[in-house]
Every structure is written in C-alpha cells, then in structure tokens.
C-alpha cells in the first residue's frame, strides 16, 4: 500500500519493554503488579533525600539477553546517566538511564520479508510512577516507579504502518522467548514512541519528523501512522513545512494532537550518574548469557517451514516459546512433527481461549504422553478423530494417556471378535439387510457406525470392516 503513496514513509521506533525481574532496578522492592498505592515503595524508589541507587544485576543480564537476541554488540564498559526533567511521577526529578555507553549497540530485527530493521542501541532505565487525575487533584502512586525497562531504539528503517506493526510483533515474540518480559501492551509492559517523517521517493535526506509519544497498542500505531501520513502529506503538498513536534495519539478520534512544540523541547541535561560506578560486562559473562539463550523465533520458524509444516500452522506455532518447546520435545520423543503440530494448533488451541493462554501453554499433558498419542496415530493404531477427542479430554480433565487408551485396546483385534461385532450389527438392522439384498449396495455403510461403536476407539481399517460385513451378508 505504501508503494501507491506519493511520499515514502520513514519510521523509527523507541520501544520500552518492562523487564520481568523480581525487584526494581535500584532497590529491593517488589515489581509485582497491582498492590495498594505506595506499598511497593521504600526511601530509594520514592526519591527521599540522601538515598542511593543500587543497580540490579538481573536487569543487566536481561538487557544483555535482549542485545544478543537482536544481534547487537554488547558494550564491555557500561555507564548509567541521569536524564533530568521535572514531573511528579519522577520522584528524583531525574531518570537514571543510559546515554553514551548503553548495554547493547547495533543489531537488527528480521521481518518475514527478510528485511532487517536495524537497531541503534538498547539501554536500561527506570520506569516512572503513576498519576491519577481526579476531582481537580493529582494522586500519585510510586509502586511502578523504579520498575526496570529496556528501551530498544530502532534506526528509521521502517517504511509503512504494516512494517511497524510487524516489527513490534517480532520484538514482542522475541522478548517473550528470551524470558525478559511478558510484553503486554494493554498492561503497559510494552509501549513505544513513534518517530515519523515523509520524503519524496528517491530522496536521500530525511524529512522533518514528528514524534508520537507513548503508544500502547499496535493497532493504534498503525492508525496513528496512517493519520500522520495524511497530515504530513497535506502539509508537504501545500508547500508547508512539517515541524519537529511531539504529538499524542487520541484513541477516540484516531488522530494525533500537539503535545509539545519543538521550541519547548526538553533539555534533559544528561550527565554520568555519580552514585553508580561504571560496570564491566566481561566476555565470560556474555558467553554465559549466550549459552543460556533458546533457539530464537525466526530460526525456529525457518526450521519448521523446512520440515514441511504448512505456513499457516507455523505462523500459529512459532510465536509461543512454550508451545514450540512442547512440540520440539514431542518430536524428540519420537512423535511426528507435522501430526503433532496439527494436533496442537487444531485441537489444543481450541481449548486455549486467549493469547495469554497460548503463551502460558499450561496444559496437563506431558510431551511424553503427547508423543505417544501421535505415535499411535502414526502407526494407525488410533484413529485421528479418536486421537483428537482423547487429546481434548486430556487437556480438559488431565490424567495420563493410559487412563484414556488401554494397552489392550491397541492389540490387534482377533478376526472372530470383529466378525462377532459385525454379526451383531447386522442382526440389529434387518431393514438394512433387506435393502442390501434388494440391491442397494450403499446400505452396507449403515453398519459401519454400530461396528465402530463396539470397537470403542480401536482403529480398525474401514476396508477391513467392509469386507467382513459383505462376507457375512453374502452368506445370509
């Protein structure tokens, strides 16, 4: 769609991701969500005079993970800096962040098209508190103040609203995979600032950009970008200039509105945080973090596609780390990958209502039992439909596979037993027998059901049943 547009859209994203550490970035208060106001607080995270910050090791580790997962270069010497601005949600009147020596520099996020969205850097910083405006008063809660964030800053490599959305989705999947964040946009654990400018196709220089602050939904990002395209294109068409403003997105009207003019741009007066020493990240530490990294989603996606799973199923699978872990384990235990994938996305997913359920993939079925079930299907011992029903029951009610399918069920059925089942079915349906005798050949199918019912899930080839039925009928 962007090809049809008159101008090329140039977009860069600054994505804030809340890290899922147990404690805040500079004190030992819990990061647990919720809690009565100002109960997850201490002198440090409420900025009491005289207090000093203590950097959380896990925050650095998670940021290194994020850097490695995006192919960034980890800085061997990192530093914290103060970003000074006054706002009631920021108790110290400065945010401890990083400017010159962030955790990770460069790297990229790969889109499905193979395009790389390059990253400028990833740094760590603290979140602000929450303000509630009510009855002419401002109520302040610092429970979220000091919760660790990473900010992932992209280069302006994104050229359409759709790419912006895909980039965010890919980031979200990636961060969840490596276990550093749950990236829930609706809860604010992932949000972004969007920089957007237009330029005539073929022009090298960037146009003047506007920044849309604090977007907490991918669909809003798409809508805001579409709106910004129209707004900026109108300005350029009429010979006016885009100004370097800061905007806010209005969900009601799907438009952007001026928040701050360029002239009022903040001067953050960054300088090195004197209360925290610079810290070294050794190759040994980077190696350790690298060693603990899972296979990354894009690699996994490519592997699944190569193994012949359909594109749609792969799309449904690869996003969820736990699902892929379950699938990979099933395959390792001998289950057929395609059949397993189909059962997961077809049957298990039907019982997982939300994205979160799929993300958690908390089902009472072990990969071992699941692999066994897939093997039964593969060996033609259990009918696929039966397998689906069994799996459904297991997911809903729990229990072991052996509770549902007995070993005796899987033994080959003696011929005389099958003949007995067939004979019983025939005996119960004289009308059908008459029809058959009168030349209506298809009447034989009406015995299939009653025979299968007696088989109770055993997978007997229908051709075999058909043959026995015809044999018995011919002898009548």
């Amino acid at each position, binding site marked *: 769609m962007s090809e049809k547009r008159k101008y090329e859209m140039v977009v860069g994203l600054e994505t804030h991701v809340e890290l899922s550490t147990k404690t805040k970035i500079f004190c030992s208060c819990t990061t647990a969500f919720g809690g009565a106001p100002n109960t997850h607080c201490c*002198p440090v995270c*409420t*900025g*009491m*005079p*005289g*207090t*000093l*910050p*203590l*950097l959380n090791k896990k925050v650095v580790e998670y940021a290194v993970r994020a850097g490695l997962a995006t192919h960034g270069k980890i800085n061997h010497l990192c530093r914290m800096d*103060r970003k*000074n601005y*006054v706002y*009631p949600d920021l*108790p*110290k*009147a*400065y945010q401890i962040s990083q400017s010159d020596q962030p955790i990770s520099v460069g790297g990229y996020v790969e889109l499905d098209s193979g395009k790389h969205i390059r990253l400028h850097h990833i740094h760590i910083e603290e979140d602000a508190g929450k303000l509630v405006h009510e009855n002419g008063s*401002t109520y*302040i809660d610092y429970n979220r103040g000091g919760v660790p964030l990473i900010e992932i800053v992209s280069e302006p490599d994104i050229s359409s609203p759709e790419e912006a959305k895909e980039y965010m989705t890919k980031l979200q999947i990636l961060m969840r995979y490596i276990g550093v964040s749950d990236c829930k946009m609706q809860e604010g654990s992932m949000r972004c600032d969007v920089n957007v400018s237009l330029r005539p196709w073929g022009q090298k220089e960037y146009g003047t950009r506007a920044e849309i602050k604090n977007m907490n939904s991918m669909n809003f990002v798409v809508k805001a970008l579409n709106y910004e395209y129209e707004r900026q294109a109108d300005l350029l068409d009429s010979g006016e200039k885009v100004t370097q403003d800061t905007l806010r997105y209005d969900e009601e009207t799907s438009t952007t509105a001026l928040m701050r003019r360029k002239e009022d741009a903040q*001067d953050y*007066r*960054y*300088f*090195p945080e*004197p*209360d*925290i*020493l610079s810290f070294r990240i050794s190759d040994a530490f980077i190696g350790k973090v690298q060693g603990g990294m899972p296979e990354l989603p894009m690699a996994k996606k490519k592997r699944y596609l190569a193994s012949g799973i359909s594109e749609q199923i792969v799309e449904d699978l690869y996003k969820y780390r736990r699902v892929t872990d379950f699938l990979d384990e099933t395959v390792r235990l001998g289950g057929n990958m395609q059949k397993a994938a189909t059962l997961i996305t077809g049957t298990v997913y039907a019982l997982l209502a939300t994205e979160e359920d799929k993300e958690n993939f908390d089902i009472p079925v072990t990969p071992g039992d699941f692999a066994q079930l897939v093997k039964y299907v593969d060996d033609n011992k259990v009918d696929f439909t039966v397998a689906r029903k069994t799996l459904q029951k297991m997911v809903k009610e729990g229990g072991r596979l052996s509770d549902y399918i007995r070993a005796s069920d899987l033994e080959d059925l003696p011929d005389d037993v099958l003949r007995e089942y067939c004979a019983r079915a025939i005996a119960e349906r004289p009308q059908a027998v008459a029809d058959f005798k009168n030349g209506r050949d298809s009447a034989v199918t009406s015995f299939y059901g009653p025979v299968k019912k007696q088989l109770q899930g055993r997978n007997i080839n229908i051709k075999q049943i058909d043959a026995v039925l015809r044999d018995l009928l011919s002898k009548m």
Partner: protein
Amino acid sequence: MKERISRLSALLRAGEISSVELTKKYIAEIERSNPVLNAYVHATFETALAQAEGADKRLKEGHAPLLCGIPMTLKDNISTKGLETTCCSKILENYRPFYDATVWKKLQAEGAVLLGKTNMDEFAMGSTCETSCYGAALNPRDTSRVPGGSSGGGAAAVCAGLAAYAVGSDTGGSIRQPAAFCGIVGLKPTYGAVSRYGLIAYGSSLDQIGPLTASVKDAAIVFDAISGYDARDNTSENVPMPAVTPALGRDVKGLRIGVAEEYFEGIGAEIRAPIERALAFFEANGAKIVRFSLPELKLALPVYYIIACAEASSNLGRYDGIRFGYQAKKYTTVDDMIITVRSEAFGKEVKRRIMLGSYVLSSGYYDAYYKKARSLRERIVGAFSAAFEKCDVMLAPTAPNTAFPLHYSGSNMIETYLSDVCTVPVNIAGVPSVSIPCGTDKAGMPVGMQFIGRKFGEADILNAAYFFEQNGDSGVPEPEGGGQL
C-alpha cells in the same frame, strides 16, 4: 586535656560520671550558650537522654565501645529517623526522614548520644554558615565572626564545648575550613571511606562525611567508628580499612612532607608563617620537606564549581513539595506548585548554584564546561598521584584567611568562591585531608593547616597531625569544654 573522647570514655567506664549526667551537663551548656552561638538548629534532648540511659546500661554491663554514652551532634544534612533533618533549608522544613543514614546507624550501634542537629549553610552551599535558613552560627572564639562553613554549627559546637564531637560533611572544604576557623580538628576522609547513604546530597562525587573534633585522636576514633564499606552506597569502597587510632604516636623521622608551591600563591604572611614554622618543626624532627610545583591545582576551583553545581542542580530537582518539606499556600497547577515551592523556599545561593549547574549541563554548553571539567578532574587526580610518589603527605593551608567577620561580602561572587581554593583540590582528587590548628593571626584567630594524604592514607595524615599536636606548638588555645569536666 584536648582528647575528649578517650578521657570521657574513661570517666564513663570508671563510673565517675554516668552518661545521663554527662548528657545533662551538655544540655545545660547548650541551653546556656546556644541562644547566642546558634550552633544547634534542632535539639534532640529527649532522644539524647533516652540514648544516655541505654548507654549507661551498656557501660554497666562492661565491654561498651569507646563512643558509648558520649554526647555528640550531627550536621543537619545527615538523615536521622524520626528527627528533623532539614539541611537548614526552608524547603525541608519539618522533614523527618523515616530511615537512618548509615553513619548514624553505626554511631547508634556504638552507643552514641545525639544532642541535636547542627547549623550549616543551606544544603552545604557556602563557607560561612550564613546561608542557613535559621540564621548564622557564630564563631565561639569571636562572636563577631563566622564559624566557617558549611559545617559551621558542628565546628562551633565542638569549639564551645556543646558536644564532645561533631559529624559533618565536606564537599569542597565544609569540614576542614570551619575546623580551621574555630581552631579545632576536621577530617575529610577518602572518598568512599565513609558511607554517604543518608547524607543529603550536594555534589555526589565530592561529598564525604567526617568528624570535627577537639583533638586528632578524637578524629581518629570517630573515623574508625564511621568508616567502612556499606552495601547501600555503591561508591563506598570494599577494601580493608585497618583502624587508624592504633597507628597514632609514631615519629616522623624520614617522613616526606610535600609542599606544592601553588597552595601558597596569594596566601598572606599571617597564614604562611605558622605553616612555615610547622615545616621547620617537622624538619627538625627528622622529616624531609619536598618542595614541588603542582600546576593542576590552579584548575581545581573552576572544576569544582562546575562539577559540584552540575550535580547539585540535579540532586536538588526532587525538592518539589510533593513528598516532603515546604508546601506552597497558593498555586494553580501542579507545575505552578513546584515552581512556587522552589522559588519561595530555596535561598539565593542555592538557586544560584542550581542555575549554574543547569547552565553547564545544558545543550550547547555541556562540552565546554561539564565535560571539560570532568576531563580536567582526571588530570588533577593524576597530578595528585604523581605528587604522592615524591612525598608521603602534603602540607598546605586550609584556607587563605582566618574567620571572616559576619556579613562579610567580597567585592564580587568570585572572591567569595576563592576562599575555597585551598580545600577543593582534595575533594576533586578524592584523597583524605585533616585540618588542625597551627597558629593564630594578629587578632588571635586560629590558622589552620591541612595534611593531605594518598587514597586511604588517613593513618599517615592523622599521625603527622598528631605528632604536631602533641609535640609542636600552635599557640591556639584549646577549645572550650575541656575544662568543664
């Protein structure tokens, strides 16, 4: 007589006086003198008596630490749980922290008795104690003069016998200069030797807590009690710090005393002469005087003002009237409230330094000022390291002058700032320094000199200072309060 702590401690242990009795004596003295001297801004007598009772119990049980039961004072920028801590600023009026500074925790564990919080320049910004929102403290040796600053209240209290010892802070000379002005001992420890947790920040990379005492040994005892690694302060150093008190009493034979000529440039004869006499004394006692040039010293003052103000402008951003302190009576928006609070409750010098700090950090000026200053600081650190290859300790004046008259204002801002010229290099370099009295001027006001040491060289400088105190002659009368007991 000068050694108060060990003497008082001996009396307490011997049961010749109880801590409660001793505390009451000090309280009486404070009630008598403080209305004039204004050394204390928040009395904590009830707390003191309760602590004294506790101390007496410990003393009876035996094995009480040296500081147990001894009445003392803290500068008003050291956080004390439940007790007013205001930095002598209107903006922190009625502020009672709900946590203790590490230093105060350590002293409480020793059984210290807190008589109150002492006067200081607002947020430790000044060298006269006159920017305090409670009015100036006076110099007990001449009440028409200032006690120096910013830890002026603590210096006055020790000098007038209103506390056995005081704990202050030194960002650019705030312990040493008032010690010099009041004729007592003041130690600025190595940066990282004493935890800053709970010290209300002025210039975070320069601030350091230290003792103001009547004698060198007292300073050593207090330093031993408050120093050491603190996991709550990332800038505190996790290195072995052997006690310095037992190291006192060595002779000075072979000690190399460095004299950097730049420290004496523009210093008048009244200050220079007693220091030269002290040098001759040391030489006569076997020390070697090494004279050299340290041109980097000339950079220290502008570098100090740039770095200290930059950090201060950021550190003081949090005073907005929302979580603690002064509240505005009338305002419209939240932003208006913050501006009103800060404009009404910060004093002029504080505002000036915040503005200057904002300036040197603002875009367009950062490289020329802050970044440059940081880089020059590095050079000063290097110059001190190099100097300590030539000598073991350095000797320098503590201040270019003796105590100013009250309300003295130089011909301009810079002249006022220049009075810090001798003290700030040590803070820039992060090394320790102790100021002791070495003589008097024509008016009989004390002159101070400082021994400067290597990082964690507290034992070296205190030993040199102790040697002079015990064997030399400063001609400075002992501070008050020695005789009352």
